[in-house]
Each structure stands twice: as C-alpha cells, then as structure tokens.
C-alpha cells in the first residue's frame, strides 16, 4: 500500500452523533478516499486547516488518538 489516493466523497457533519469521541466536535468532515491500489476508506482530513474537495489527491498519515491507538487520516499530496 502506497498510502496515496484520491478523495471521492466529502461530507461535513453538523449533528453530533458521537459527542464523546475525540476529534469529532461538530462540524467535522468525513472523506471517502479511493486508494491507488483500489480499496475505499472512510477517513477525516489530517489537519483542521484543510477543507477537502472531491478529486483532491491525498496521502495517508497516522494520528494517535489514544495511547497505542491510531487512525488513518489524509492530507493533501498533489502529484506532478
């Protein structure tokens, strides 16, 4: 797995469905990423400063949300 992919869906949550979950204070963004190798993943942007759009090229990063527990997030990674 290269960790690279493209955003194929993007949605901003305004209702707090998981009020106690770390990093999911509303509004938060869920993206759907198609990895270069084919699989689909739900994820979130790796940083709050980035507002993703469909078609954006991305690369995976691991975010530690609790000791020993990491989530796969994505940051913009345009390719030449």
């Amino acid at each position, binding site marked *: 797995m290269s960790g690279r992919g493209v955003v194929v*869906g993007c*949605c901003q949550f*305004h*209702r707090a469905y998981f009020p106690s*979950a770390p990093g999911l204070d509303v509004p938060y963004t869920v993206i759907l990423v198609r990895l270069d190798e084919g699989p*689909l993943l*739900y994820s*979130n942007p790796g940083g709050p400063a980035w507002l993703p759009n469909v*078609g954006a090229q991305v690369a995976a990063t691991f975010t530690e949300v609790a000791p020993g527990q990491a989530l796969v997030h994505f940051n913009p990674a345009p390719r030449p």
Partner: protein
Amino acid sequence: MDRDSMRSRAAVAGVGTTHFGVIPGYTSIDFGVWALREALADANLSGEAIDGLIVARIPDNAKFAEAAGLRPDFSLVLPPTGRMAGVAVELACLAIASGRARRIALVYGNDGKSAGVSYGGSNDPYGGGPLWEPYGMTSPGAFHALMYSRYMAETGADRSHLAEVAVTFRQHAGLNPAAVMRKPITAADHAAARPIAAPLHLLDYCLVNDGGVAIILTDAGLARETGKAPVYVRGCRHASDFTQSSFPPDDFWRGAMARAGAASYAEAGAKPGDMSGLMIYDNFTATVLFSLEGFGYCEPGTAWREIQDGRLRLGGRWQANTSGGHLSESYMQGWALNAEAVRQLRGQATGRAMRHPELIHVMTAAPQCSSIIYGVEP
C-alpha cells in the same frame, strides 16, 4: 403474450393507509392492522379471503396474523430496512403467478416516530463498525451526502439544484390532506435550511413518522370481484448491488437500476417515455436524481438540469410523488408511494389527480433497487 411472463398476472385489489404523523400508543402491528382493515374495505374483501401475507417492518408475521385474524398459508416477514416494498410486490406476484396464493396482503407498519427512532450514532444498524465509527461516519443521510458530493464534482450541479425536488414534493403534499408537512416552501427556504450532513440540509431529508400501509394483491382473474377497476402489475423486478455496499457505490447503483428497469420495461411492454407519472423513492432529494438517471429517464449526470423546468410537478412530463412522497407526505419506506400510484390510476387522488394516467412507474435506488410498473390495462 409470453406464457412465462409475469405481466399482469397479479392486480391490486385494494390499498389502505392509516393516518400519518406522531401517533403515540400504536405498535407497528397496530398500524398494520389499521391499514389492512382499510385495504380490505377498499377491496371489498374479508380477512378470510386472504391466503398469503407478507409483512415488513412489523417484526413478526405470526403475531401480526394473530392480531389481524388472518389464516395465510403463504407467509413471511421482510426486514425493517427501506426499499423492501418493491421486493414484497415482486414476491407476491411470483407467488400468485405460481398459484401458491390467490390473494396476498402486503402489510407495513412503522411506529418509528413514537418509538423514538433516530438515525445516526452508535445504535444505528445502518453501516457502523470499525470502518465507520472512529471517523465519525454514520447515517443514511451522510452516505447520500457523500454520493451527492461526488455527483456535484462530476456534473457541475450544486446544492441549489436539489431545491426543485423539495419544493415540488412539498407543493404536492399541500394538495394531499393526509400529508404530514403541507406548508409550502421556497427555494430560499431550502437554501436556508440548517445543514445536517452537508451538502444535504434539513429539507433534503425525508420525515420520520408513524403510520402503516397495506396493499392487497390478487390473481388478476379475481381482480374484478372488488367491483372496482383493477390496477395491474404490468411489470416488476428488483436487482441488487451488495458488493462494497458499506460504501457509496461507484456507479450510483446505475447497473442494478438498469437491470431492474430493463426487465420490468420488457415485461410491461413499456418504456420510460410511456409513463404517465412517477413515484420515486425519495429518502433524500438527491436520490431522485440518481433514480431518474439509473432508470433511463435521462443520461447519467443530467437529471439535475432536466428537472429545473418543473417537469416533476403535477401536470409535468415526469410528474412525480403527487402525494408529497417521503420528503413531505410520510416516510413509509416506499409503501405509501405504491398506494399513491394505485389511487392515481383509479382516479381516487382527489385534489391532485393526474390527467387520465395509464401507467405509473414506482422506482427505488438503493443497494436493492426495484422497479414496478402499474397499469390500468393488462
């Protein structure tokens, strides 16, 4: 006619609906019994005549039959997910065509509003699990929001193009005394509605409410015993796409819709341009666009433009969801749209009647797609 064809082997003898809205004190079985009573009266039949039973969202067919005083030999229960109405009609047609049953009651009851059902969060059986929850992904609304975000990027549509769907169906609900949400809305109201899972906002979502619907399907040879003009099931078919169904489909379910559509069109001897009116599973406004494209009313990626001329409105070329649909009449998971199709074809949709409808197409876009074509002629 092809001897193996299912075309018009079954007909609707009666439909029944309860009140819709917030109706405390009733279980899904109670709503089903209420709707069935209405449908039997409409069909001019007694419960003793019913020899088949399919229930949906009602959890137990045995308990339902006991409560309703039915003695069906053919009997089953379908899961409480949406989109099962089309599957139920097809199953009933198969049972009738094969001679296993002659008069089947299809009964749906939903106490979701009073039972406090909400969508999204850890208890929602829709999706969920380790691929969804840690990232805050949940709810059918967000699933369709992700689909529409991609649709917008591929087609040039934006959020405002959904307003026509919401405004039209609300206008229709205003003509339907049974509808829950009847106050007219404008495109500006749609634009200003609070976001839930953007790009979908409140007025892009269906309602959550209580109620029930019953449909009685009979062998077409018996259909005239009701004393009313029969409504024939000219064609019906469902088709599924469950691979990767935990994720929005790459093709907006176009493949499954094309299969269900083609089979039902062939059986009915009709094509999209022949339909007098449409009943489109509108769990969300965006689903209406996906459905019109998937069932061949227009090219993929164009429905958002096509509908802006008002053709979904009563009297329009694609007049649709004349009851107000899930968005404004009641969220009866497809069932009430079937009842509306029958009422329109019988000329009983007072105040919102289509002009001389002959064929009405009921369609559902979902992992389990379905297509039913009802007609006044066999």
